[in-house]
């Protein structure tokens, strides 16, 4: 298709104006950074909201500056917006759209994404979604209180609560815009991987990060379309008088609702058909980063590359058949519950394959505990800790007891929240030298790691015990409840741990911005990694490889190759180095 290149060619010289270079940029690297900083802003909003919740849980009558005392409705608003910002604008945005945008094209040897204009549009659409979501705080009635899951009928009835009027409409509109943005991003990622791999970069030579971004993009492509439909129907229920999700004869705040004939369960099905793959959208990129880092910093090839790839694919496929395990409490048929339970347990198999292969990768390696490695190991630790409570919750009998308790809060925060965030931290410390040309400060990074690791365990481990002691979730105030009094010391401990953990994050932010300008200058390949991003200039030039396309001769993780002069072989190295060539690395001509 070279003949129609010249039409679009002129816009791909490096842009010079400030606006086209940094604001409406078509460069995937700038767009990746834009996503990253959007996520950084969002994570601080989400963190502030969680801080307010933790304060309210132990000092319910505390006077908060600018807000006063937190009312129960306000608590639900904090809960909703904390979840929404964290899930959509942090966990979906930073690992996939942020790092994926920046490093996916470089790691496969492409000059940019397949559709640069679409890429720009997807960021700015996400940004509009962000602004609309922020606006929900400031309209009359404030932000909604239906939780990030937006369960109907609470979300479908404007008279159901203070935030359920305009605020809820804005929330749904923001989510719908976010869906469209994610769809644009997802199809761009998939097309880039399918069509723009440089010569020699077969699918089975892609770094595992690329595999993770690839499968995540497929999940996003299939899942967000369904959420978009659900959002449109919910908006219609609220504004057009339909009743998809509102049952007949419902009485809300003393008034009978005119809707009839709908089913709240329909919302749960549509939402969780999106919602469960969304969990993997958040965690898979972290798995990719952990694989890359464990191999690099153990100076060993990844243990079982193919098994890792198949495990990612397996998790992605199974992820679409387990949404019912979020609905065991809805009175579903025990036969469906059994099927969903079985499928859910089956996900344990590829997850365990990944975990054991990570351990196998570190096993007897020459492990270097630099800060990226610490966070990658932390990721594995949190993934195991959070994952082990999964098989408990996958069983309908146990889930019915645990579902509305803090046990579930602990489970999903460890595995989906903190583990994914550790993936983001690991990726930040690892790729920062390439993105900004300077190293991050190592002592600050180590302090950040230990405080965050111990802090998050101190926050979320006790929550498991609270959950087993039947401490319900989503309740605003339980300080006066007699049978929960013995848990109050634990509650206080968790809040204090949250203070310390949140304070530690300021070390990270300071380190991030300080190192951007004052950090030690980085070399082109400070970690002695093998993948393509470490062959470029630092930071990479506009078209990544400077008007040429690399050629790949090796798999992504060739460390400690016997006979090689260095302990690593770059993917672009044309020599076989002592004949140590894995099976899939047969010469190009044979393919």
């Amino acid at each position, binding site marked *: *298709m070279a003949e*129609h290149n010249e039409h*679009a060619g002129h816009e791909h010289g490096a842009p010079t104006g400030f606006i086209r270079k940094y604001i409406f940029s078509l460069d995937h690297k700038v767009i990746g950074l834009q996503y990253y900083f959007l996520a950084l802003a969002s994570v601080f909003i989400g963190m502030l909201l969680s801080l307010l919740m933790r304060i309210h849980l132990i000092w319910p009558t505390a006077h908060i500056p600018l807000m006063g005392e937190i009312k129960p409705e306000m608590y639900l608003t904090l809960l909703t917006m904390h979840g929404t910002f964290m899930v959509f604008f942090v966990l979906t945005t930073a690992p996939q759209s942020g790092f994926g945008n920046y490093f996916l094209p470089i790691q496969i040897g492409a000059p940019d994404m397949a559709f640069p204009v679409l890429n720009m549009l997807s960021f700015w659409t996400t940004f509009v979604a962000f602004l609309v979501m922020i606006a929900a705080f400031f309209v009359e009635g404030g932000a909604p209180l239906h939780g990030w899951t937006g369960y109907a009928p609470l979300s479908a009835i404007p008279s159901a609560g203070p935030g359920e009027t305009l605020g809820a409409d804005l929330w749904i509109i923001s989510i719908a815009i976010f869906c469209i943005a994610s769809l644009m991003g997802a199809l761009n990622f*998939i097309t880039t991987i399918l069509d723009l*791999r440089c010569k020699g970069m077969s699918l089975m030579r892609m770094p595992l990060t690329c595999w993770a971004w690839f499968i995540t993009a497929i999940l996003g492509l299939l899942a967000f379309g369904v959420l978009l439909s659900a959002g449109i129907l919910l908006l219609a229920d609220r504004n057009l008088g*339909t009743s*998809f999700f509102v049952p007949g004869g419902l009485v809300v705040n003393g008034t009978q609702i005119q809707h009839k004939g709908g089913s709240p369960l329909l919302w749960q099905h*549509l939402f969780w058909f999106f919602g469960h793959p969304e969990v993997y959208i958040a965690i898979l990129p972290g798995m990719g980063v952990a694989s890359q880092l464990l191999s690099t910093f153990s100076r060993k090839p990844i243990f079982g590359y193919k098994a890792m790839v198949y495990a990612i694919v397996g998790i992605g496929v199974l992820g679409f058949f387990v949404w019912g395990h979020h609905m065991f409490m809805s009175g579903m048929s025990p036969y469906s519950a059994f099927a969903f339970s079985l499928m859910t347990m089956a996900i344990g198999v590829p997850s365990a394959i990944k975990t054991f292969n990570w351990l196998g990768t570190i096993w007897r390696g020459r492990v270097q505990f630099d800060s990226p490695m610490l966070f990658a190991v932390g990721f594995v630790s949190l993934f195991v800790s959070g994952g082990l409570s999964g098989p408990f919750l996958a069983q309908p009998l146990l889930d019915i007891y645990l579902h509305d308790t803090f046990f579930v809060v602990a489970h999903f925060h460890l595995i989906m929240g903190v583990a994914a965030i550790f993936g983001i931290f690991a990726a930040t410390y690892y790729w920062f030298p390439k993105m900004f040309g300077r190293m991050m400060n190592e002592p600050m990074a180590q302090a950040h790691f230990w405080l965050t690791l111990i802090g998050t365990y101190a926050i979320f481990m006790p929550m498991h015990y609270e959950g087993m002691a039947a401490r319900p979730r989503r309740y605003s105030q339980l300080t006066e409840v007699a049978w929960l009094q013995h848990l109050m010391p634990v509650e206080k401990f968790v809040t204090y741990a949250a203070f310390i953990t949140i304070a530690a994050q300021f070390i990270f932010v300071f380190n991030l911005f300080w190192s951007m300008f004052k950090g030690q200058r980085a070399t082109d390949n400070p970690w002695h990694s093998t993948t393509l991003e470490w062959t470029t200039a630092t930071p990479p030039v506009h078209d990544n490889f400077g008007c040429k396309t690399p050629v790949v001769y090796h798999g992504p993780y060739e460390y400690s190759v016997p006979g090689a002069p260095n302990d690593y072989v770059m993917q672009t190295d044309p020599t076989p180095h002592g004949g140590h060539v894995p099976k899939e690395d047969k010469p190009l001509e044979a393919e």
Partner: protein
Amino acid sequence: MADAVVHHPSEAGAFEPPFLGAYSKKIGMWLFLLSDSLTFGALLFAYSYGRIATTNWPTPFGQHSIINASVMTACLLSSSVTMVLAVLAAGRHDRPWARNWLIATMIFGTAFIVLHAWEWNGLRAEGMTLSIFPAIPHAEATEMGKQASAVPQFAGTFFALTGMHMLHVTIGVIYLGVLAFGRKWLPVMALAAIGTFFIPAWSTFHWLTYPIIGAIVVIGIILWLKPKQYDAPDIEVGGLYWHFVDLVWMFIFPLVYLMSTRIT
């Protein structure tokens, strides 16, 4: 190979062979259609869920509705034929005929939109409506309307499915105009965007104007950023979209209309 990223045509061979030999735009469109089919799938799921959960689901469509819907179906099927002819003409670099067939496709598409909007208003005048829709002037509820209004899910799913499809057809007509006329289509789109403000508030189509204006703005930005003449691959990709929209109607027509025919 993607037209957008290869800097030097001599370098087009520097990449692994593309997936199934398809160029990036085609893969992108297939992926979008995959995602869109799940969006429609979710709406059809909601429709089926409501229909199965309701014992007295109305079956009110009589001869008049079915004939009208059949004519609409014929319009869409004919537009698929003209779209194929447009793609073929573009393939043999016959720009004038590619444009003519695209215009023919747009005419059939517009006929579908007009017939559909007219039918919507007719159904609402008979009483098959949503509570938020303003009353249509000189409306008179019929037996059919009474039957339909007894089950609000009926009108809800009907308008959700056909509305979403109508949105796709409308955006499709705008998209085909871009392919046929390139940048010259910008003023027409601007006129269309302004024109939507003159659609009366009681018209059902009024509710689609917001997403349509949004789509016009996005298409306008892309046209402005990528001023180019659209060639054979572009028209083929547009054809994929148009055929998909036709295909979706082939699900909606039997599920929503034929399965709700009045049995006498």
